[in-house]
């Protein structure tokens, strides 16, 4: 029985790498799916409200006017959702969609930490910091 633990380590060594990441992969996949379905559901609700009110108007996107401030910032979007505006709801759904990749990076930090993979915790944290810097530096929070 002395050879037992030895052959154990040997088979561990030759195991293909990514299968150790299986658990992270499955959780990440579910996280992405949930985020996407949630945002699609919100956008769909907003679409119904919007099309009900504006469906027969003329569509025109030739001239760029820029969105009004209520669709440019997070507080603005929340305010227009409160007044049950279709476009506000759509914009809220889009905000959730934009948040899914960010949430995915956040979770990866936790996932690699659970695996005690210090190198990848550092890599993921670097990505997260750059991501938050460019996302929040844009002034959508105000």
């Amino acid at each position, binding site marked *: 029985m002395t050879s037992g633990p030895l052959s154990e380590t040997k088979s561990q060594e030759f195991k293909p790498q990514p299968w150790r990441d299986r658990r992270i992969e*499955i959780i990440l996949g579910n996280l992405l799916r949930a985020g996407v379905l949630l945002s699609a559901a919100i956008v769909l609700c907003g679409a119904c409200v919007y099309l009900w009110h504006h469906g027969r108007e003329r569509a025109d996107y030739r001239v760029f006017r820029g969105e009004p401030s209520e669709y440019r910032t997070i507080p603005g979007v929340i305010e227009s959702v409160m007044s049950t505006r279709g476009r506000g709801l759509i914009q809220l759904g889009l905000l959730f969609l934009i948040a899914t990749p960010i949430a995915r990076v956040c979770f990866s930090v936790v996932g690699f930490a659970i695996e005690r993979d210090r190198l990848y915790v550092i890599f993921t944290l670097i*990505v997260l910091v750059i991501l938050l810097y460019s996302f929040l530096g844009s002034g959508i929070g105000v």
Partner: protein
Amino acid sequence: MSVLEFTAIVAIVSFVAGLLGSMTGLGGGVVLVPLLTILFHVDIRYAIGASLVSVIATSSGAAASYVKEGFSNIRIGMFLEIATTLGALLGAFLATRIPTRALAIIFGAVLLYSAYLSRKVRPLALRNLPPDPLASRLRLNGTFPDLEGPRTYNVQRVPSGFGLMFGAGALSGLLGIGSGAVKVLAMDQAMRIPFKVSTTTSNFMIGVTAAASAGVYLSRGYIDPSLSMPVMLGVLAGSLLGSRILMKADTKSLRLVFSVVILVLGLQMLYQGIWGHI
């Protein structure tokens, strides 16, 4: 055209964009931007905003299955995202200081050449290369479910791949689109990663790159809810179907689709560079 008709047509076009985007790892913007601007006369800024939404929708929509089934390599993705996000920061900084027209023309020419390169299936001798010490240290080598069963691969030339990814990020900051093409090419041609792993890992990565610039576009008023709504829903449905097709398709036909799409992207870049629509 009434809003209802417009919404329906844009949703259908977006479905096709999501289908192609998820199968090639390029995101939906490649198809969407020219169609919205040329066919529907949408202002380029609204089109770019909608394209950004479509990239995130394709990425997150298809990545769910790619990651779960073990196609995307999350370590390669996370490691290379350091380069792309840093590159995107530099690109945004340089955007007002570099002649983007000239850049678009050069990039267009590179894409035309890459369209030719990427059609070739890799010879068998280049498929089973010994592990590279740096790639092993970074734990980048992996396995993916090929049509004949699980296949192991060894990542090559990590530094040049990392450098190209930095360039991909800078390009996306400068030109708005096209970063997915460089990502796939860097992984496929430079790092010798199997094609399906390259496209699905690129697909996994483009969402993060796009999310980094989404804040800027949103606060500038580029993201119009009524235009982005059919785009997002259509692209999402398309990407779910596209991811199913990719997993069962053979690499040869996927390479063909990829090279046709980047050929179109290359022509688009040349056109924009020459006529100054950028």
